[in-house]
């Protein structure tokens, strides 16, 4: 891909972020935003930008970048253009963890992300164990099926958990399950950003393995990849990235599906460029989706996951038709 296209990707992200800081129930001018970021301007604008929208945009960037990279890595490794973190049960696991925390009445700010982490990690472990028991090795198709099964089980578990819960709890849990970056807080953002950075860098480091695994297991093995180990590693890193995003923003679907496809349409073919561009495109899309979520029916706010799904579902159907 040419330098121009990379510049365009960065430019698009910058524009989305600027819109994310300026637009909302209270519309600000770009001048207000810049002044607020530099520490000046009137106190109301400064408070809106620095205390509310900046954290929100940052969480949207982390969420989009994480989901985009996770999808790109999973699609290559599983040799499946329909693969994305949500298909692999990670979201389900994370949601179970979070809903469990909400239902148990745990209110500490740190509890929800941690619970989601634990749930996602448990789901990943389950998927890997099921796949290993079923096929004796890391067969991508079995992994995908195991992911679907774990996801379905997680859904059922959530229904059971919510059945006896109070109205307020159900409302909170549902809101979170529909995805949102409105609750962004600096305290948890720092850790999410660090996790996402480390996992993302680790994925970029194994990008060549992803390129070779995309040829098929035997071809990859012939080119020096330790297939089972590499598959497991990529799967866990992708799951970790997805868990970070779920912990921060709840269930934001279809980003991991749409983003790598856009990156490929832009001419990214090899995994390293695909991963990095997917991070940029994903961040841009989720920041933009969040702008839509908070302006489309202001002052009411749409769930972020609903906005991404409204875009993602038609896209999924078109892709499904092309794949069939």
């Amino acid at each position, binding site marked *: 891909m040419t330098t121009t296209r990379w510049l365009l990707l960065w430019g698009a992200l910058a524009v989305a972020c600027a819109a994310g800081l300026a637009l909302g129930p209270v519309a600000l001018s770009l001048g207000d935003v810049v002044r607020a970021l530099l520490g000046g301007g009137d106190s109301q604008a400064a408070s809106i930008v620095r205390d509310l929208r900046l954290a929100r945009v940052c969480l949207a960037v982390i969420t989009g970048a994480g989901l985009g990279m996770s999808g790109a890595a999973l699609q290559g490794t599983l040799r499946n253009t329909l693969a994305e973190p949500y298909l692999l049960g990670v979201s389900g696991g994370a949601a179970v963890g979070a809903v469990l925390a909400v239902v148990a009445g745990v209110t500490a700010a740190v509890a929800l992300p941690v619970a989601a982490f634990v749930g996602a990690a448990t789901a990943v472990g389950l998927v890997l164990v099921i796949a290993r028991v079923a096929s004796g090795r890391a067969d991508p198709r079995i992994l995908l099926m195991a992911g679907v099964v774990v996801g379905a089980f997680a859904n059922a578990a959530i229904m059971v958990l919510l059945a006896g819960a109070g109205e307020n709890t159900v409302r909170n849990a549902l809101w979170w399950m529909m995805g949102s970056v409105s609750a962004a807080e600096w305290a948890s953002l720092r850790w999410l950003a660090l996790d996402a950075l480390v996992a993302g860098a680790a994925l970029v480091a194994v990008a060549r393995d992803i390129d070779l695994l995309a040829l098929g297991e035997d071809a990859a093995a*012939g080119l020096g990849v330790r297939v089972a180990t590499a598959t497991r590693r990529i799967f866990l890193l992708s799951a970790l990235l997805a868990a970070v995003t779920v912990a921060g923003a709840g269930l934001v679907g279809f980003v991991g599906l749409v983003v790598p496809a856009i990156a490929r349409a832009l001419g990214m*073919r090899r995994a390293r460029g695909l991963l990095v561009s997917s991070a940029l495109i994903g961040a841009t899309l989720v920041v933009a989706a969040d702008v839509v979520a908070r302006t489309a029916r202001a002052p009411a706010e749409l769930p972020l996951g609903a906005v991404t799904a409204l875009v993602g579902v038609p896209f999924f159907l078109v892709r499904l038709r092309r794949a069939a």
Partner: protein
Amino acid sequence: MIRVHDAVVRYPGARVNALDGATFDAPPGCITAVVGPNGSGKSTIVRALIGQVPLASGALQVGAFDVASADRRTLARTLAVVTQREEPVFPLTVREYVMLGRYPHHGAWSALGPADATLADAAAARAGASDLMARRTDELSGGEWQRVRLARALAQGGDVLVLDEPGTFLDVAHEMAAFELLDALARDGRTVLLVSHQLNLVARFASRIVLLHRGRVAASGPPADVMRGDVLEPVYEWPLVVSRDPAVGAPVLVPLRRT
């Protein structure tokens, strides 16, 4: 040089060994063909060579490396494998695809450089794929794809080539071209091991044929020693005769009708 010594492989859950003490050598400078009925263990040898199935006992040696203990990436610089099937889900340009053969020579962060590009070009030229470099892998015909895959294997730079059914999906002309290329590559001093169903074809190109039967070597040696009715008939469990082709003088297997 490939050395298979008393190799035993059993797939999980299987009742019999896929390889049951097979022993043979594939020397450098010639084509060695592994033949045998379905399920005789041909493809298992290829999968064992690339570390996709472990040996229960015995040893596999490629050049100076013991396959079981060698680092996979180091081994891939000596041993290149063209597997039976490979359908990239995500198309690459042919140049990008051939360059994948240079990956085993690099760590995670070292960049592929002009030297790799030169080697990839040379590999493509050797495999007759130079004019395809700007194409995309999903636009190639069967014959072109096979040449491109061979170019990628040559770009790995090793001197041991293993091919699983290299003639599959190829018409007569492309098949002959592929085998002539393999013959030329072997004459350069490479070890060429190919797994094939096509006994008549390998009998014309291979210097040695290894006949597998239920995971064991039923016969091995020059084509004249293996391409015999009394050797092949009990292995394939089908009545057949071996005659001599009047035009090229090679042994020709003709399966007979039972009715």
